[in-house]
């Protein structure tokens, strides 16, 4: 054992030697920095942002009303008057695509929010309490995941009745196991961390540890999963709409628009092209953004 310094010389707290790093950087700020550097992710975020703006400002930017019919102008090709052309009722496709963003984003966002909340709770319960609770919850997840998700969604809608709201509920339900499993695995690993032991050692209760230490450590993967899940939810909503199980006419839902116009695909391809493009772009946007978020937030990718 080396000898200790005979007398500790106390430096004043403002001694320049103590200056370390002035700027306080939070993990979120770090993530934002690395997200900014990722061009693809920014592209995705911009696409998403544009669609969100479109949805919010639909009333102001749409040139026509979403259900404004003009039977004389049916199936018109794109022109300066109707940029995206018109459909078989003479409705302006651009306007319907713009209003459709509202529906798709609404369904995507709230369906994912619902499944994230329910899935996280179930995942926490399964991961923390373990044993038979875990067995029951995990097996239910396994069973749900064994179904093709769209079939499960169709089954749920069949029970609840076809409507946009029920499609949203169905999509929320089928996404629960994804979040549940994710959070469960996070809980299992965080539970073993030493800071959980030291939280216990200062007298913290289990419930409090769960919600103030375990859950916040799972937020990042939940956000990533959530962003990617919105993309799938939008596709699922469109698929249900296409099958007539989601949005009901005359709601300008993209999937429904595809279904309604598919008989004109040869004579008036723009009637299916633009709604399809809208679906593709939003999904692409959310996927790019989700991938970027994963790179930025995943601690394993950090050096």
């Amino acid at each position: 054992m080396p000898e200790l310094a005979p007398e500790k010389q106390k430096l004043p707290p403002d001694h320049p030697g103590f200056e370390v790093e002035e700027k306080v950087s939070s993990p979120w700020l770090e993530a934002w920095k690395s997200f900014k550097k990722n061009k693809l992710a920014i592209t995705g975020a911009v696409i998403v942002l544009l669609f969100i703006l479109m949805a919010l400002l639909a009333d102001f930017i749409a040139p026509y009303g979403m259900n404004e019919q003009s039977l004389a102008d049916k199936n018109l090709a794109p022109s300066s008057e109707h940029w995206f052309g018109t459909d078989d009722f003479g409705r302006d496709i651009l306007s319907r695509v713009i209003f459709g963003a509202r529906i798709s984003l609404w369904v995507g966002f709230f369906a994912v929010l619902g499944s994230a909340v329910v899935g996280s709770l179930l995942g926490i319960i399964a991961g923390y309490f373990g044993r038979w609770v875990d067995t029951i919850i995990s097996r239910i997840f396994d069973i749900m995941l064994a179904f093709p998700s769209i079939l499960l969604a169709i089954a749920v809608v069949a029970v609840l009745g076809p409507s946009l709201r029920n499609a949203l509920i169905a999509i929320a339900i089928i996404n629960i196991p994804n979040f549940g499993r994710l959070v469960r695995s996070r809980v299992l690993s965080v539970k073993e961390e030493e800071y959980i032991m030291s939280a216990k050692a200062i007298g913290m209760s289990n419930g409090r540890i769960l919600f103030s230490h375990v859950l916040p450590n799972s937020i990042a993967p939940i956000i990533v999963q959530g962003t990617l899940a919105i993309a799938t939810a939008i596709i699922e909503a469109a698929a249900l709409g296409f099958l007539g199980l989601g949005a009901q006419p005359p709601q300008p839902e993209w999937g429904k628009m595809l279904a309604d116009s598919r008989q004109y695909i040869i004579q008036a391809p723009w009637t299916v092209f633009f709604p399809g493009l809208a679906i593709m772009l939003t999904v692409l946007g959310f996927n790019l953004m989700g991938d970027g978020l994963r790179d930025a937030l995943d601690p394993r990718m950090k050096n």
Partner: protein
Amino acid sequence: MGETILEVKGLQTHFFTDDGEIPAVNKVDFHVDKGEVLGIVGESGSGKSVTSLSVMGLVPKPPGKIVGGEINFKDENLVNASEKRMRQIRGNEIAMIFQEPMTSLNPVFTIGNQLIEAIRLHNKWDKKKAKARAVEILKLVGLPRAEELIDEYPHQLSGGMRQRVMIAMAMACDPEVLIADEPTTALDVTIQAQILELMKDLNKNRGTAIMLITHDLGVVAEMCQRVAVMYSGNIVEEGTVKQIFKEPKHPYTVGLIKSVPDMTSKRERLYSIPGSVQKPGSIKVGCPFAPRCEHAFDRCVSETPALLEAGDEGQKVSCWLHHD
């Protein structure tokens, strides 16, 4: 000798595994007096950490379980205490710091956040008062720029600073006993010295009793008044620092002291005790150290020695060489 604050009597903590029951802590007796520093030394796997976790009621359950004995803190037997009562005691009356400062803080919260939470857990204070206390305690543990540190994240601090934060967190509610489980093992030597100094100060100025778990005999000599030597889940020798270093009685203690590298010695090879620690419980009868002991004789394998007073002034040893 002062008033006893923590007394452990016949503590048995067993782990129930697929390979059977393992007595990680096997009938351990020791006590900590008010304001003293007790060292617990031993090799890895000797049951030091499990003993401290048992006192905190934090033995992972399953597979671990306290199957016998008493842990008397003031006038209360903690073995029978409810989980709710234990939560009140943890952090408030008995606090603990761990070996790994790098991972003992939650990476997603600021230092202040975690300190304030710890303070408010045991005090019904508003946030402002708790924050003031957090700054005060950070200054107490010798951290510079306490006001700024409060808004920083654990990854921005060095290991030594983090260990200071851990000590601050443990000291936040002025506990009467601080259990330090190898608090300096993960730190480099200069920081080690500072942390030990800090703990000494806290012990002296605030009268906090410290139970210091370590395998470093240098640390023991520096810090402790009394030492208990653990081997394979048992305490094999107990005494004051002077007794243990000057007149070690148990062959294991002798071996431990001999294996500390000595700069003045000309010998090239370092001394080491032959063999390694037996799995606790693998020796049912006899002294657990007998297979590695150069003085072992027939009685050592046929009868288990008890921890009894030997020599003068309360030195205790469990070895047939010193008992009849």
